[in-house]
């Protein structure tokens, strides 16, 4: 190995760290740019969008772009619709996944391990195989063009992944609590509701947030089932905007997109801890 002086080591390390910082900052800017640029564009007057060299942020910012963009299509309604769908589905997922997860974790019933294997198997299934039968089933139920196909399935177990998360969590709780409650004469429902559920608060929040984000972003489901544009969630609303106005009114489209992003952004910043934890739980399941 080459002999180096102490100062040489310090300098090399400093140089290395500078490179790293530059890299980190450069990459961060690259990652931020699409969104930052879109936000900037949303405040521009239309001609400035087409200017070269492109400007990042206009002065003065055209605040009126926002109400103008949002009035061309009923965006307030789209966002309201998205809330309805998302809340309905998230509630269902949290509620039923925790119930079923509890059953797999703490209850003893014949066939439990068999059904658990079935549960795991469903995680491997790509949704496309079920797409067409689902549509036909819902069509025959008269549920097309309603929110029911988007909400009701969430209440039926809430997805294998969340059930799995709850199961792992509930399994980790020591049995003494349960035994003590049983001695006191509590029935299963009470044990679940009064002991396990409160303990599961962190995971309830994590699942709720992950579910919220997933349903807020859901595009294909609404695309297939909703035909009345008044029922559109924001994902379809944006697409409609793109088809109707997008090519000519880019700044409005960007404003609408920013508004669509906003709740997710806020949720992300408030609940980052939980989102990250939820993600890492996905990884540890492997």
């Amino acid at each position, binding site marked *: 190995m080459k002999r180096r002086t102490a100062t040489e080591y310090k300098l090399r390390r400093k140089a290395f*760290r500078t490179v*790293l*910082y530059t890299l*980190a900052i450069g*990459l*961060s800017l690259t990652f931020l*740019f*699409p*969104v930052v*640029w*879109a936000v900037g564009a949303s405040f521009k007057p239309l001609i400035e969008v087409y200017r*070269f*060299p*492109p400007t990042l942020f206009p002065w003065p910012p055209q605040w009126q772009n926002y109400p103008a963009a949002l009035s061309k299509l009923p965006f307030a309604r789209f966002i309201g619709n998205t809330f309805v769908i998302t809340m309905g589905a998230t509630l269902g997922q949290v509620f*039923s996944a925790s119930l079923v997860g509890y*059953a*797999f974790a703490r*209850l*003893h*019933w*014949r066939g439990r391990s068999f*059904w658990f294997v079935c*549960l795991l198997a*469903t995680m*491997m*299934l*790509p949704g*496309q*195989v*079920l*797409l*067409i039968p*689902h*549509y*036909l*089933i819902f*069509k025959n139920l008269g549920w097309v063009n309603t929110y029911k196909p988007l909400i009701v*399935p969430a209440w*039926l*177990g809430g997805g294998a992944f969340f059930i799995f998360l709850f199961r792992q969590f509930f399994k980790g709780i020591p049995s003494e609590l349960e035994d003590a409650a049983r001695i006191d004469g509590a029935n*299963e429902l009470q044990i679940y509701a009064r002991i396990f559920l409160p303990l599961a608060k962190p995971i309830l929040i994590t699942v709720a947030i992950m579910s919220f984000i997933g349903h807020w*972003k859901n595009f294909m489901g609404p695309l297939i089932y909703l035909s009345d544009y008044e029922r559109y969630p*924001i*994902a*379809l609303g944006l*697409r409609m905007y793109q088809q109707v106005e*997008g090519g000519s009114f*880019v700044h409005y*489209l*960007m404003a609408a*997109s920013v508004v*669509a*992003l906003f709740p*997710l*952004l806020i949720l*992300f910043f408030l609940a980052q801890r939980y989102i*990250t934890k939820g993600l*890492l739980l996905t*990884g540890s399941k*492997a």
Partner: protein
Amino acid sequence: MPTLKQKPTRSQNRTGYLFASPWLFGFFALTLGPMVLSFLFAFIRWDGISVDTIKWVGLGNYARAMRDPDVGIALWNTAYYSFISVPLGLSVALGLAMLLNQKLRGISLFRTIFYMPSVIGGVATIMMWIWVFNPEYGLLNGALRQGCNLLAAMGLTSARTWVLPQWIFSARWAKPSLILMSMWGAGASMLIFLAALQNVPDSLYEAADLDGAGRWSKFLHITVPQISPAIFFNLIMGIIGSFQVFAQAFLMTNGGPNKATLFYVLYLYNKAFQDFEIGYASALAWILFVIILFFTLLVIRSSKVWVYYEGD
């Protein structure tokens, strides 16, 4: 009090099934049942509307899929996208994770920035990227053009010789554009890699330093094996996800230009919901299932060779 080893009582069975009933009902009604249905649909021709149009074709749909040139195109596009975006995405994610693992200051800020796109991504960000890719006024070409002008000003090249790609409007650049966009969402994999990296014991690296190992050797022989479960997980998730790419193609290019981004799921969607070919689309769905299963099992099988778990 009944213990684990004893057979559950009738009342315990009842409780268990009661708690699990939402999922059990959903499993039969929305998973198993539809699976059987879709399997059967693959053997018929139907428009999904009137029952009298049903016609049994046996393996006809599968035969048609073999002959259908669009299926070949769709498979090629999907494979192209998947086999490039997944390794690339993993590399970017790993690179970012290694960068963040360096104990720099402001790491949580950087982590947030890298992770944010994969969380907020959706139709809104796709709209933003459509504009980023715009050949005349978009951010990408704008930046490239500035870069070229800069190089030209420094005398390194002639500004006139550069033709900038048309990105999503070019049959040649459409798929690379989508691949580029997919790397923007590498944040989730990055977090998993970061967690794995942080779990690698420093003592291993110190021992390697004592033996005089270089940086690349340490990476190859310590880092990679130690984080191989994370690589395994991200790889499988990446493959499964990339084979199902839909929204970007649907919103940005609608399969074009010239079917360059006609991905498999997009083709399936068109066949099912625009052409109303229930049988054919179902057959296509099962083909996709088999393909994804094949590659997943391949990775799982191979994992015995290169994945090291704790305590191996």
